[in-house]
């Protein structure tokens, strides 16, 4: 249990892993401080899952090194396994078995006695609001319940490092909030959490530090505040009543905000980054002022929103290309596994 909360939980240097001709990891460096939530942000196919699988000892890297709490993930895999848990993107429990059976099974495999495993399973089911579903096969669980039992299984051994691979993808907002609350509780008890996500919003909400991953390498790293300072605190999205007024609106916005304005595919919509190199407060003020100036110029705005930049906008800001769409690249990786 030494250095559970201090030092580095993960140190990865120059990780490389190829599947056929695809380099899923292409020199990935990662340093995760112990006792925090660390977010790995990137689109599908960026290499997030591959990175997690290497760190959790499921895949061997072709090159580079990785240590988890000082243990090498290849040479000392068993020591790593005794301190980590993985909740994968897909159900990582036996769907034919009931929730309780799955947890008892894992408890036994982690060395608990028959009674101890049963007791631990009951505690976990109660804490995760699954007591009623204990005797039901996991394949009959709803999406949110499945995620919860998955995470319950992962903390059965109170790991020092918990990997959560896209824990909220495909969940409804309420289930997502539940997962977020669980993550916060887990880290409050000293477990380090490494979470991958496609949503800047999620990384911002949970993570102390974020690494942005693209094509198998880290292209930006820092606290959410630092990242936002470099990419802009947010975006204003404006939709006009009359598409004919768009050229005029673009001029007004550019003059008011002092940044380039993007013309969206929708002929009546415009988007601009706000709060660049500034604080959140400025972003709101800037947007309000711009809105006033549009009104003063006689331009009717039908819809207006100020929000965090989307993953696409993050990528546009950090690279010159939008996030790689979720396409064949992922299937290719699957096939190569």
């Amino acid at each position: 249990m030494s250095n559970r909360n201090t030092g580095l939980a993960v140190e990865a240097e120059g990780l490389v892993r190829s599947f056929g001709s695809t380099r899923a990891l292409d020199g990935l460096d990662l340093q995760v401080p112990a006792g925090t939530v660390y977010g790995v942000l990137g689109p599908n196919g960026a290499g997030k899952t591959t990175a997690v699988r290497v760190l959790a000892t499921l895949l061997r890297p072709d090159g580079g090194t990785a240590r988890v709490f000082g243990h090498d993930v290849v040479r000392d895999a068993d020591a790593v396994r005794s301190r980590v848990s993985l909740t994968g993107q897909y159900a990582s429990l036996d769907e034919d078995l009931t929730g309780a059976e799955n947890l008892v099974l894992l408890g036994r495999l982690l060395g608990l006695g028959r009674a101890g495993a049963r007791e631990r399973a009951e505690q976990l089911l109660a804490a995760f609001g699954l007591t009623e579903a204990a005797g039901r096969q996991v394949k009959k669980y709803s999406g949110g319940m499945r995620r919860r039992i998955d995470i319950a299984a992962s903390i059965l051994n109170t790991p020092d490092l918990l990997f959560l691979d896209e824990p909220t993808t495909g969940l409804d907002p309420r289930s997502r909030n539940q997962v977020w609350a669980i993550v916060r509780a887990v880290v409050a008890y000293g477990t380090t959490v490494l979470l991958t996500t496609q949503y800047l919003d999620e990384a911002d909400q949970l993570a102390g530090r974020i690494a942005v991953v693209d094509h198998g390498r880290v292209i930006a790293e820092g606290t959410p505040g630092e990242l936002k300072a470099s990419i802009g605190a947010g975006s204003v999205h404006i939709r006009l009543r009359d598409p004919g007024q768009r050229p005029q609106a673009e001029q007004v916005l550019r003059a008011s905000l002092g940044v380039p304005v993007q013309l969206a595919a929708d002929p009546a919509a415009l988007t601009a980054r706000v709060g660049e190199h500034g604080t959140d407060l400025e972003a709101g003020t800037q947007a309000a002022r711009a809105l006033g100036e549009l009104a003063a110029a006689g331009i009717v705005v039908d819809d207006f929103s100020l929000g965090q930049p989307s993953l696409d906008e993050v990528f546009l800001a950090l690279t010159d290309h939008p996030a790689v769409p979720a396409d064949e690249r992922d299937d290719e990786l699957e096939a190569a596994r």
Partner: protein
Amino acid sequence: MSDTAITTGRAPSVYMPSAEALATVLAPAERPARPSALSASLTFGWRALLKIKHVPEQLFDVTAFPIIMVLMFTYLFGGALADSPRAYLQFFLPGIMVTSVVMITMYTGVGLNTDIEKGVFDRIRTLPVWRPAALVGMIFGDVLRYVLAAVVILTVGVVLGFRPDGGLLGVLAGIGLLVIFSFAFSWVWTFFGLVLRSEKSVMGTSMMVLFPLTFLSNVFVDPSTMPGWLQAFVKVNPITQLVTSVRAAMAGSMDGPSTMWMLLWSALFVVVFGTLTMYRYNRR
């Protein structure tokens, strides 16, 4: 089945994680010592039993299929190859028992292949337990299916008139030898289950190996009627050694050389394919 799915569907869950409830499960506890290799394997064996409990349809393969094999071949070949189906059965039953059970071993590979597709193996592979435990446990579960299939066939055989001279003890010895061999042979399929991409290709490959192996043996006919080159193959075929030893055991005697060869083959399968399997398992 479907009505339970409806009632268990989307109950309005109002769960919100509470800090106190989570505190009880998150407080770091002393980690228990890791389980022994045997204990871990048996726990995985328990998982296989639970799967049978929840999906009993999977026992169809080990009950209906063997019964069909016995009935089909006894009445198809009985009159032609022996004086009567009943006379043939006395020769044929130990052989068809071996054939059926050895054919069932391929489901070990199929099962492993589908298991791995489902992601549960990711969790299993990150557990700090004896590495082969998951696979050994899986095969423990399969051994139960082998025993069940063997008992089903024997029962059908006895109903049709098969009378083992070795009595209960001889029958038990025969089943024991068959189970030892099948346990060892299963490692061939775990390897294919890990190497091949889909359930279908595992099935296809298994059939390509199993058909010649079981038919080109002494299961169905006396090899002395075969051409010399075929006899040469039949003689070294591990299935032939197995059938000879099981036949002898059930007849109340013991065929030393065949039993030894069959045990050697079993050891070879475990060592070679067990090693290859674990190599693939660790390097996936």
